[in-house]
């Protein structure tokens, strides 16, 4: 259990650093593009690369949200259900999530054969398999994130914790902490 928790913490940190890097890169791309356009020299690759950057940020960020169990849901009904039903629904919903991303990972990999002959329009030196690699990789990572965060989610489910209520309490705790920090 300690090993799983350590792996979860490491993966969470790696995803955090990588996604923050992607956000900074995306910001720089937009600012560089605005500067070039202002001086009448638009970058032809701007739209395509920035859009791909957004997709990468979205899918790897979705992994980060998965490991923190922060995806939008409706936990109220399950957390108020009687014990055995709660366990059954929890397991069923986990199976659906993992099954969905297994399908995405499989077909995301299969599609590489088709994309192997295609390159980006604005930067022909970049193959589409590289840009599209985010789909199977992030789908596989999503499954890993889901599994690594499973023990904590299981414990919370067993004790009937409503994840939405917990997120609200956490947001308030952080805000109050920031407030104290700003006042001191």
């Amino acid at each position: 259990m300690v090993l799983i928790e350590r792996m979860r913490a490491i993966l969470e940190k790696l995803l955090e650093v990588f996604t923050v890097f992607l956000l900074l890169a995306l910001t720089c791309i937009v600012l560089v593009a605005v500067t070039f356009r202002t001086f009448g020299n638009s970058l032809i690759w701007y739209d395509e690369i920035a859009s791909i950057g957004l997709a990468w940020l979205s899918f790897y960020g979705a992994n980060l949200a998965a490991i923190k169990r922060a995806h939008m849901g409706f936990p109220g009904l399950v957390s108020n259900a009687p014990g055995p039903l709660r366990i059954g629904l929890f397991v069923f919903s986990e199976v659906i999530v993992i099954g969905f991303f297994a399908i995405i990972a499989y077909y995301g990999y299969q599609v590489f054969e088709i994309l192997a002959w295609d390159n980006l329009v604005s930067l022909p030196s970049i193959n589409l398999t590289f840009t599209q690699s985010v789909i199977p990789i992030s789908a596989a990572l999503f499954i890993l994130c889901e599994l690594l965060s499973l023990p904590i989610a299981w414990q919370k489910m067993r004790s009937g914790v409503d994840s939405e209520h917990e997120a609200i309490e956490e947001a308030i705790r952080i805000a109050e902490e920031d407030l104290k920090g700003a006042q001191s």
Partner: protein
Amino acid sequence: MILVIVIVALFALVLINVPIAVAIGVVGVVGVYINMGPEHLLNVPLTLFNGATNFPLIAIPLFIFAGALMNTSGISKRLINLVTSMVGFVRGGLAMVNVGVSMFFAEISGSAVADVAATGSILIPEMKRKKYNPEFSAAITSSSASLAVIIPPSLSMILYGAIAEVSIVQLFVAGIIPGILGGFGLACFCYYYAVKYDLPREAAFSLSRLGKAFKDATWALLLPVIILGGIFGGFVTATEGAGIAVLAALVIGGLVYRELNFKMLYRAVTDGVIQTSVVMLLVATSAVLGLFLTEMQLPQQLAQQITMLTDNPIAVLALINILLLLLGMFLHGAAAIILVTPIVMPLVIQIGVDPIHFGLILTLNLAIGQQTPPVASVLATACSIARTDMWKTTRVNLPMIGVLFIVLLLVTYVPIIPLYLVNLFY
């Protein structure tokens, strides 16, 4: 019939706590598999990827980043002080400060919950200390935060604009008059409430204090001027405006005020990344559902069936309003926008409603829906800070929901209100 099955399947999955984005994707994949055949499943990853490469949506993470910079570098604090010195002298002024601040800051980090937690943690305890009713304190924070979805830069509008393929800048402009009307309505209610319950003034009006607050906030005020001036003036797009907002916030917070707290900034940015990704995964998986719905021509069929009942725009808009208000009670705003927009758009166009006008109707409806339990995370956060019961607070909140509802009716049936500035400038 297929649409009913899709809706039932979706709700069943959401109710058993499958993340909404995954629930949408699962229904989409099953729909593609059953109706189009297994060979079409190869389109799913491509559609998923294309769904997330929606260029205008780049504005979302950038505005969130700018919001994080503003909150962690003293910019927000100065703007709050300025609002306090401007309206704090009025009876019930603290409630009005709450309206102004909540409207300005709500959704700035991409998470309405985090923003209400941030502003509410400052203002609600202060309101309670000044003998404001705790339920009223929670209700006014929550209602004014919800109104912020139509005040630029609004993440909900960026989302709608990208999905409906309409100008985000024009949506921002369309939100100005309804936003001011809503804010004015809420402020009027605060005044009425303050007089009725003899609530205190903050302090007597002081020109010197206002001058000091204004001077202190001069650089902070430049930020909305640069961003909104650039966007509305047509110099930059919404996405570029968001990029410039990041740069301006970095320069003002980091170099002018020198109060940038990197630890807080890192946490705010990672939270922002999560908020962006949660919404973007919804956008991506809804593209998969859209693949199936479009193949089945379900939105067109729905439009045809409703217009067979009535093609009177007033009646159709009333129907849509009821549907959206109900949906807003059970779904988060972003999820509802992503799901509803592609389905009702053909109907909206068929009855001759301007998509910009409809964007305002949609976002306002969902804002009101966020005030009504069971799914009312903004209200729940405000209640949690004020330590009040959500149902009791909802009762106190009813007049404020009424104000939002009047704005909704005005926006729906007097199109010139949202469209006046749009027609004037574009």
